[in-house]
């Protein structure tokens, strides 16, 4: 009975402290607002930036996955000539014959399609407009391997390849650059690539900005920038890598795999590299946000300290009227915890709204996970306690 009465009184007392603190915070709207702003921006940016990072991570992953999951990319790597190492990626060690060998060799059993590719940036001209874009020398198999669809006309056909017709397929952004409208169908038009005429036979669906033309018009170079290989299925990827690797090593008269003048990249490798990169990006963003949260916390401490100085008289008075140290500490602590608590909630809402709006405007995916929210909230309340405790303690130790 007595315990019950006591606890009822305790609750009443706590509630009173709470309302009293809210009253004080309301009295100084400007000060309260400024202190809260630090926390709101801190928490808000943590949530918005983490969400942004995660969304871009997802976007990168889904884009890479859409390229095809059993795709291997063979690219030339720096060829060693004695001790001189050529520039990475700029190698000239892969040839069209290599691509044909992979396709036809009996050693390689796990490969479905092979696409020899040459790419480089060239000037594309039509009438009075022109643009500079990546030109990929491609064979009909390209669409299969890269999951590419055509929106107008058709892709380069087997007949084009055999008859060595100069045909080109454009990407939508090239169409927009050349004809001013990405929905224009330029099939049948003539364009000039590097001074040679090509007939446009189709337009690809949105995926990249590249233009393509038939494989045999590689403008006088006889090396490839990459060979794309589609394996039979995702399970035989490793086997395919080995088969192709040994085939190319023997073709290039190399016995030591560590001296290979090419690189075989698995789609999974690319994916994990990209994920790693965007993960680093996310943690970088989180770091920036954490700093702003810390600054917000210091802002609260600053304002609480100023408050203590400003309210020296009030503290003295309260102590003269019978307030104990504990009471004063509790009062100041309650104020700063309410400050960070409310600021934290507003910040969370703000962060979610910002990342939602960002996703909406950029039509990217909206990713909100619970972890940063919980973390940000715990941090904000912890800031309230830590940065509120010190000024509170200092205030309570003053003599009345």
């Amino acid at each position: 009975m007595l315990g019950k009465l006591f606890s009822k009184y305790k609750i009443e007392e706590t509630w009173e402290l709470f309302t009293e603190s809210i009253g004080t915070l309301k009295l100084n709207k400007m000060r309260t607002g400024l202190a809260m702003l630090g926390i709101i921006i801190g928490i808000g940016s943590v949530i918005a930036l983490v969400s942004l990072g995660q969304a871009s991570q997802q976007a990168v992953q889904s884009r890479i996955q859409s390229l095809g999951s059993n795709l291997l990319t063979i690219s030339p790597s720096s060829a060693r000539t004695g001790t001189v190492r050529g520039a990475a990626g700029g190698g000239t060690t892969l040839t069209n014959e290599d691509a044909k060998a992979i396709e036809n060799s009996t050693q390689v059993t796990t490969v479905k399609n092979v696409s020899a590719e040459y790419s480089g940036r060239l000037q594309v001209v039509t009438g009075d407009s022109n643009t500079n874009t990546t030109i990929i020398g491609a064979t009909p198999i390209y669409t299969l391997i890269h999951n590419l669809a055509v929106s107008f006309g058709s892709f380069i056909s087997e007949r084009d390849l055999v008859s060595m017709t100069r045909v080109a397929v454009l990407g939508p952004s090239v169409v927009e650059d050349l004809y001013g409208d990405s929905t224009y169908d330029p099939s049948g038009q003539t364009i000039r690539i590097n001074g040679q005429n090509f007939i446009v036979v189709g337009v690809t669906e949105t995926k990249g900005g590249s233009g393509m033309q038939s494989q045999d018009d590689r403008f006088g170079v006889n090396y490839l920038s990459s060979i794309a290989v589609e394996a039979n299925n995702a399970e035989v990827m490793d086997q395919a890598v080995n088969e192709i690797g040994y085939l190319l090593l023997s073709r290039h008269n190399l016995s030591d795999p560590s001296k290979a003048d090419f690189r075989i990249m698995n789609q999974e490798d690319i994916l994990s590299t990209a994920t790693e990169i965007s993960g680093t990006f996310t943690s970088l963003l989180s770091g920036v946000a954490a700093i702003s949260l810390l600054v917000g916390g210091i802002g609260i401490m600053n304002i609480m300290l100023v408050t203590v100085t400003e309210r020296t008289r009030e503290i003295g008075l309260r102590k003269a009227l019978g307030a104990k140290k504990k009471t004063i500490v509790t009062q100041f602590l309650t104020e700063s915890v309410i400050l960070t608590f409310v600021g934290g909630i507003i910040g969370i809402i703000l962060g979610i709204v910002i990342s939602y709006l960002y996703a909406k405007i950029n039509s990217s995916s909206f990713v909100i996970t619970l972890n940063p929210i919980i973390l940000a909230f715990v941090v904000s309340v912890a800031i309230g306690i830590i940065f509120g405790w010190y000024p509170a303690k200092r205030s309570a130790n003053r003599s009345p």
Partner: protein
Amino acid sequence: MKSQDFIIKVKKLSKIYKTDLLETTALDNVSFKIKKGEFVAIMGPSGSGKSTLMHILGALDKPTSGEYILDGEKVEKLTDDELSDIRNRKIGFVFQAFNLLPRTTTLKNVMIPMIYGGIPKEIRLKIAEKYLKMVGLGDRMQHTSNQISGGQQQRVAIARSLVMNPTLILADEPTGNIASHQAEEIMEIFQKLNDEGRTIVMITHEVDIAKHAKRIINIKDGKIFKDSPNHARKII
């Protein structure tokens, strides 16, 4: 006379402020006693040590040496929190600058000591209303402290000093910040409270104000040089 009848017993009280360079003796072996129901004015020019004495009497500060017994409790032996408790229950403060919480209603201001005294809310409200009415501010309960005049603010402070029913009312230059006709009103309230049997110790440097008291203690250079009943008492 029994020792219990003395509300204040001060014996050889000294207070020395030390800095790195010099020592200042603010109070030098001060001894006096105050009985229940007295109205004492402690007078002295600025720097005489009367503010130091007021701080010690109000349990806001501890003496360097000597003994201070307030209502039977040895104040100099108490901890900070116990001092807070003593101030809350036994002393009602009236300050020169009123020291009300700004932008807070008079009613709320008057209730503060009762919050720290752990008095339930409903009772708090009743007591606060009673004393605000007593000092003539029954119609100003919802006004904030900056909406009323200096004299009215001091009356709120008096109401605040009474709510815990203290054994001693300690007033530090209570009329120092208000107009003279309002000062008379404040003195009238003090005399009325004294007539009701309350013990009042008032610190002042004004002769006009001190003459309302029954007894005047004069302090100079930290020492009592005159302590006598006030025969020429002005009664309002």
